């Protein structure tokens, strides 16, 4: 276990950080609770693995397949019961070993505290070889959307080769990486990195969502259930952070409905509008 990658110099130890978010199709409503803002009916809202972090997991699984003896861990901080539900689906997508942390997955938690908890969990993975470590995650969550947690995890692990908005990672023959990161104007920045350790905050990547594979699911569940049972409770205090308000946008537009107008009439109106 400790040195399973020995003799395969391009084997990677890939840790994917991913939490849960409410299903994007759900209507969300904030409410104020004793511990700060929360979502109405948060515990019963259907949840999914955070979308960009999901892409990170698929990319991790793909990279591990290309480099024998590599291994993928999924480190997730979320309410244990919800994590168990989501794992029923996610576990069928890609092979991984779950490291579960039982705590809030709310967007209103403090990124620095989340990063601290994730780092402790990563450091506690038995036999993790930091020299071969790649830390994956989404470049932003669909909850807090700050794009801050991954960098702080990297900092805590002493990793200063970090990339955000990653759409492509290619490993060269010499073990170096070529990385494409999203930058302004629909462009990609191309960087070369000497090799691991490194942090990658993934955007969409280039892989489609894998189809469910029950065999992968069965294999994963052998470690998922024990991981959930021994999930360490995590408390996030939000020290020094106060939410003065959390509100839904009130703006409701008075939509003018244009029916039964000829296409030429509509086109003329649109042209005038475009030229204003």
């Amino acid at each position: 276990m400790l040195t399973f990658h020995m003799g395969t110099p391009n084997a990677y130890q890939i840790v994917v950080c991913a939490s849960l978010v409410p299903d994007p199709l759900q209507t969300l409503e904030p409410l104020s609770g004793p511990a700060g803002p929360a979502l109405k009916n948060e515990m019963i809202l259907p949840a999914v693995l955070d979308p960009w972090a999901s892409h990170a997991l698929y990319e991790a699984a793909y990279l591990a397949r290309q480099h024998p003896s590599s291994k993928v861990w999924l480190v997730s901080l979320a309410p244990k019961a919800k994590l168990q539900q989501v794992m029923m689906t996610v576990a069928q997508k890609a092979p991984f070993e779950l490291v579960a942390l039982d705590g809030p997955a709310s967007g209103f938690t403090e990124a620095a505290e989340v990063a601290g908890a994730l780092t402790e969990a990563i450091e506690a993975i038995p036999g993790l070889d930091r020299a071969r470590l790649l830390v994956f995650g989404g470049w932003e969550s669909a909850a807090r959307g700050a794009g801050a947690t991954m960098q702080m995890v990297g900092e805590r692990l002493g990793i200063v080769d970090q990339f955000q908005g990653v759409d492509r990672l290619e490993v060269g023959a010499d073990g170096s990486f070529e990385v494409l990161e999203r930058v302004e104007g629909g462009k990609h920045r191309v960087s070369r990195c000497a090799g691991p350790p490194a942090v990658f905050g993934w955007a969409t990547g280039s892989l489609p969502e894998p189809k469910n594979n029950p065999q992968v699911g069965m294999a994963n569940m052998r470690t998922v259930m024990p991981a959930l049972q021994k999930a360490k409770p995590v408390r996030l205090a939000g020290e020094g952070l106060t939410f003065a308000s959390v509100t839904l946008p009130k703006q409701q537009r008075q939509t003018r409905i244009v029916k039964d107008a000829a296409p030429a009439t509509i086109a003329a109106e649109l042209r005038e509008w475009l030229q204003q």
Partner: protein
Amino acid sequence: MERILVLAHADADGSLGKAGREALTAALSLKDGLPDSTLALGLVGENVQTAADQAACCGATRFLGVAGAAFAQARYATDAAAAEGIAKAAEATLVLAAGTSRWLRCLPGVALRLGGRVDTHVTGLSVTAGKLAVHRWYYRQRMEAVLQRTVRPWVVAVDPGCHAAWQGTPAPAQLEQVPIATGDALERTTVVGQLEPAVEAQTIRPDARLLFVAGAGWTKKQADGQTHVPEAEQLILDFLGQSRASLGSTKSLVDLGGEGQAVLRFLSHLNQVGQTGSTPRHPKGLATCCHGEEPHTVGWRFITERRAISLDPNCGWARGKADVLYVADAFQVMAKLNELLAAGKS
């Protein structure tokens, strides 16, 4: 008393870019609202004197710079080291920077190094009773929060486009160089270039006046029972060519490609707006053949004037979200619109 530091990169030509000058405007408004606060400007780049001179009369009392070839690269290790060094030299309690891809990559790590906290994608700043608050959106622009912090330093990345860019007359600025050690450990990563979309490809372009959003309806069966994807592609490309609009798409349309269905070939995930895409800022938006919450709320949050073309008069997401909903066949309307735009140019 807050010691405000604005961090900015010098552009390739040495100047202070628009996003950096927007952050400077935000900082100046805070300086006015926070009694006894001071302002410093920290610059990072290959050569930063020109940028310092450009902002000499902005009201900053200190100009700090980290310069050198190693700092020309948009690289986490050197950018973080430079920002950390400047923030410590300035003894900053409040660090403001533009939320560019370059700063967003490293600022959270910098905040951790400084023992502070970070907030990104900040869309507004306010001071009430001498206390600073930042405004930002949660759950992909579905709800807006106003939050305050007691922990310092507080690093704040302001979204571009939320403040006017500061303008002033250049003058010689007294630049203090902050020495930062570089070396192999900080230069394991090298930026080798940028990949731009192909000339004919269209993406989200922040400078465009119009966001055109193509929905999955373009690839569905039309009134004759057939799909007309090639015609849809041509109509959209013609319109983009005429209008110079930014092209957005819905997740469902982009995903269709992965499912083996007919898709518009020029669309990729980079066009996607909404939950797992971008939330662009444009003065105007035109949604076509879209249905669902994503394009009309999340993706359109920061679109000022919105119009939609849809065959569904009862689309619950267009109603109340768009200013005008045209109940019509987008194929016919866009063909006529292209004719009019072409005639206007000839």
